């Protein structure tokens, strides 16, 4: 399909265009803008959730009473639909909403911020909110990993006089490598395909400055709004190539880290 100019409604008029779609795709500034946006978003999201979920997992490991209650509570955002979550988020973060009011009343903010009209704010705010929504999944995976680590290793380290941080970097992190690798791979595969979040808040253009445009949003617009399916299929393939490259780099990086 990526070598054709196709409109689903008139399949008889499809014509073969060779690699034209691919050339257009590679030269399309909006596609790269969308790709940049999602990378911007994901780098913040991945770093933030990693710290939060690993931190929370470490704390949950230490307690026994009430751990189940905390896990259940932390899972509530995960089971909420993205559509509902985005309605809540838009209200919370709106210039008139609770979060900005609180921040203004304690002097963190001078005036209301219309972040949906801003060039740089939408992606970080979405990343922060998505950390709220998804951290529990990663936390549970890390917790599962932490509980399998042999306690004697820590005993031995403590006898040798290793500090908490040394134990963390020398024992916990290396032994958590399978979980970290799994989480990071899933992050890239899922995160690069973000759609509903931005679709709920911004229109198909991704809002002013295309600050909320993501590759899947752009692909949806090309295929189902502009009705050029062939080009949309090409964009999908391009995105898949990017995801593949990123995942490979990640595996290489984390694997090398573990061995050194």
């Amino acid at each position, binding site marked *: 399909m990526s070598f054709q100019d196709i409109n689903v409604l008139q399949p008889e008029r499809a014509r073969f265009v060779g690699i034209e779609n691919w050339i257009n795709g590679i030269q399309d500034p909006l596609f790269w803008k969308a790709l940049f946006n999602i990378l911007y978003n994901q780098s913040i999201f991945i770093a933030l959730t990693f710290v939060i979920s690993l931190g929370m997992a470490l704390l949950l490991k230490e307690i026994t009473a009430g751990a189940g209650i905390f896990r259940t*509570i932390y899972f509530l955002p995960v089971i909420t639909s993205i559509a509902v979550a985005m309605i809540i988020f838009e209200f919370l973060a709106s210039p008139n909403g609770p979060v900005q009011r609180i921040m203004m009343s304690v002097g963190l903010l001078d005036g209301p911020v219309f972040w949906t009209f801003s060039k740089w704010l939408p992606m970080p705010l979405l990343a922060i909110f998505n950390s709220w929504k998804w951290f529990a999944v990663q936390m549970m995976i890390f917790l599962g990993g932490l509980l399998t680590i042999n306690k004697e290793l820590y005993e031995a380290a403590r006898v040798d006089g290793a500090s908490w941080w040394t134990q963390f970097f020398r024992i916990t992190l290396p032994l958590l490598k399978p979980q970290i690798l799994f989480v990071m791979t899933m992050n890239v595969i899922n995160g690069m395909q973000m759609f509903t979040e931005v679709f709920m808040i911004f229109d198909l253009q991704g809002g002013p400055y295309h600050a909320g445009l993501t590759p899947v949003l752009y*692909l949806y617009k090309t295929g189902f709004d502009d009705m050029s399916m062939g080009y949309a299929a090409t964009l999908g393939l391009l995105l*898949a190539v990017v995801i593949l490259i990123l995942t490979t780099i990640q595996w290489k990086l984390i694997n090398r880290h573990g061995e050194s």
Partner: protein
Amino acid sequence: MFNIRWSKIAIYSVLILGSVIVMYPFFIMVMNSFKPGTEIMHYPLSLPQNWTISGYVKVFTTLNMGVLFKNSLIISVSVTILNVILNAMVAYALAKLHFPGRDIIFKVVLGSMMIPAILLLIPTYTMLYNWGWVNTYRVMIIPVAVSAYNIFLIRQFLIQIPNDYLEAARMDGCNEIQVFYKIVLPMIKPVLATVGILTFMHSWNDLFMALLYLRDESMYTLQLGLYQFKEVIPGRFLEQLWAATTLVTVPVVIVFFFLQRYFIEAFTGVGLK
């Protein structure tokens, strides 16, 4: 001793603070659904001063909640039942039966998990459109009736079951289908519950597929109805919007509380392989 107690207190404080942050948006959601519209606009921080359920009452007339609920239920329940039965059957074949090409088939199933869904979006859509499936229930059900991830999850569970049980049953004269229904299915209930809730949640919360494939308002699911409602009249009917979001969220929360033990275990197990 003193030290340990203080560190416990610190840990619990952080965990409780985390819970408050996690719960706060839900608290706001439920509180807003009981406020009159103007109060939501002007006093976002306060508790409802004039409690009202008019949002809940009106939302059933403006948003056609009955139809949306019906559609969402038909789709989610069918998808869940099909996934549990079909994936269990596939996983059983892949884990416990011997036939030529089995390992290759399993590798293909695993490999398909790694392919980004986005790659298949346009070809799948074109195909289903040409079959005339757009705007039917089956377009929301049949393409997602089998999932590689679920097959993998169930298979991991099945291979832990000793073959002796199955052999004993076969000795007693059970055929393969009886072995599957009488012996295997009861033994893998926990993982089936997990698959069930994951699938139900995913299907119930899905907006993307509904957006692609459903055209008539009479076919809309809850999520799609909610999206349309939010888009068409921004800033109006606020109390109804919040009542609707609460109503959409409640069913998954209920399912979650009944099955959460399995559900959380599922997430713990996935990374371990």
